[in-house]
């Protein structure tokens, strides 16, 4: 089963220690064959909306930046509980904030 974990931006700026711990965590999950892909996302981005025939393209930044996604990890695990356990470890490293874990269907 694949799960996508998305993380919302936090107020605290990452420090050296967090980078080091994150690096180790990512390495460990890659080695365990669990982490398929991961990355950070640029803040804001470009918004494309459609309404009827009309398609609107808007450049950021946007007011509700808190609700955007700052990073993601695509993991392959046996169960939702495993995904949650990994998300738990991730949150312990990054500190206060919020992540969302969703099962991925397909391809």
């Amino acid at each position, binding site marked *: 089963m694949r799960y996508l974990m998305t993380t919302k931006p936090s107020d605290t700026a990452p420090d050296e220690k967090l980078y080091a711990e994150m690096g180790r965590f990512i390495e460990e999950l890659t*080695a365990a*064959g669990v982490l398929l*892909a991961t990355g950070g996302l640029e803040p804001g981005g470009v918004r494309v909306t459609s309404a009827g025939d009309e398609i609107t393209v808007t450049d950021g930044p946007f007011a509700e930046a808190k609700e955007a996604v700052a990073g993601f990890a695509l993991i*392959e695990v046996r169960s939702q509980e495993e995904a949650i*356990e990994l998300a738990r470890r991730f949150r312990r490293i990054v500190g206060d904030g919020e992540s969302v874990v969703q099962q991925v269907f397909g*391809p």
Partner: protein
Amino acid sequence: MIVGVLPDVHRTVDAAWKLESAKIVASLTRMVRDVGLAEELAQDALVAALEQWPVSGIPDNPGAWLTTTAKRRALDHLRRAQRLERKQEQLAHELGQRQDRERGADARAEDEPHDVLRLVFLSCHPVLPTEARAALTLRLLGGLTAEEIARAFLVTVTVITQRVAAAKRTLAEEGVPFELPDGDHLAERLSSVLEVVYLIFNEGYSATSGDDLMRPGLCLEALRLGRLLAELAPGEPEVHGLVALMEIQASRAAARTGPSGEPVPLHEQNRGRWDQLLIRRGFTAMLRAREAGGAPGPYMLQAAIAVCHAQARSAEDTDWSQIAALYEALARVLPTPVVRLNRAVAVGKAHGPRAGLDLTDALLADPVLRDYHLLPSVRGDLLAALDRFDEARVEFRRAASLTRNAAERAFLERRADELGAAAPAGPVLGEAAEEFLGRDDLDPATRRSYGQTLRRLRRALGDQQPLASLTADQVTRVFTTAWGEAAPATWNRHRAAARSFGAWASLDDLTAGLDRRTETRPRARPLDPAQLDALWSLPDLPLREETLWRLLYESGAGVTAVLSLNVEDLDLEDRRARAATSTDGPSRARPRTRLRASWRSGTARLLPALLAGRTRGPVFLSDRRPGPARTPEAADLCPDTGRRRLSYERAEYLFKQATRPLDPARAGYTLRRLKQDPRDC
């Protein structure tokens, strides 16, 4: 503590356990030096979690909790073991030291990956049978329960439990160390590990029933094991080769079955449904394999073939000559029939169906592929490409009759149907065989015997094979493949059946290539009543000989078994003997079979005189004591007289000598002919 809506605590424990168990069991094995014990101690921690977490709540770091608890159990165990061994005074001192040592070892985080690698090598050790390696690896490295493993391998839980227990016992008995293999053994040990991982993958990959997710789940387990190995042994090209192979094969999982579960062949798959993420991971693994260097091994070559397919945007774009070349290289390092069959497919695509078909011809005589449905299926494809539709149809129908998978059978039948109706070519093999066996004048035993022969011919040649095109060469090939190694009597029985069928079907030349084989050991024909009467009337029969012959005749037991009887085995009152398996070690004359024999008045009259009060040792003794150069087994010596057990050779010689005057051929009879056909008794 974590608050909020949580799934079942047990499922959380299980998830944390599965993620951590390999590391926990590995480091505990290093501590206690016994993988079976290590796993028990680790299981104790799991049980503790299942008891405590529902009450105390799930700890902040479940994985760390399990690890700490398990290590504490292991330390407790070591202390207990030491306490038993040593005096109390010494203990305090040494325990402290030992604990320091253990803590020091614990602190060495860099040891952990090596422990896991050691555990992989241990659970895939060649002293274990392959299925045991797979079960133990899933148990120890994947943290799977016996129930989960049993479901995945479609066996009962008991089977898995016993398999795992036996494997642990073997590892302990053989004293397999918890070490990485040294340079000399590395290649062999590594290939044993890779074999297990690929076996687990294929168990999952070849499962087509979607009822239970556990079987496809095996693919994930194998992928995880492979990816883990790639990090633990980054310098091994074959590890990356296997990972590349599995990633790319797994990338096709969604595309390889149709809506109703039927298999979709590679060249018909919707490539849009291939998982590009896994393909890219496969390519990356392949690059790492190349970087590691060395001559490409079987996994790398198979992965390279998979890469060729994955790179083709459409089936038509496939670089078949490259694939054919890779298969040729693969057939050199891994010349299995299946690889050779795949090579024929690739050559057929690259250099034309004629070339492919020629390669499959050589495979027809391979006993391994005798009932393998893909051989006729491939031949059907190649024949169809050569516009030889009638032959192709026969091959597809034969393939359909050989596969056990219903979806695949339907697919193959459809391939046959698509080739149009058969031109009227007269009677076909299947129907002719039914008609032949359905005749009234065959007795049931003959029908059963002929049925075996014809069933083999039908499976090998196809029910739709027109009788008119049946050749002696084909029949010879089937016979050689199926019964070439069989006993002459078996060969001759099938040959007779084929000849009878050929004569019935007016195909007299069908068995032209089959020679009758000499039956080296014909069944002994029991002596008839007249011969027996003559035997018992012989004058001056020695007591031992007459007793032996009577016993053989009346009990119907085998000669070796009767000669192996000891006095202790006899029950004179009830006129029976029961010989248990020899406990005196291996002995030539005492078979390891249990003998139960009973006799009648003739023997009963003679036995007491023969035994003459002896209470132990062989019943039938030789006349002389063994010479000084011969030292028979103790079990073959009479403890009272020092004489040895009568040998088969000697007993046979004496019987032949005695019966020579009775035998019209003047050769004398063999002892086996005293054994009466049970139907006559």
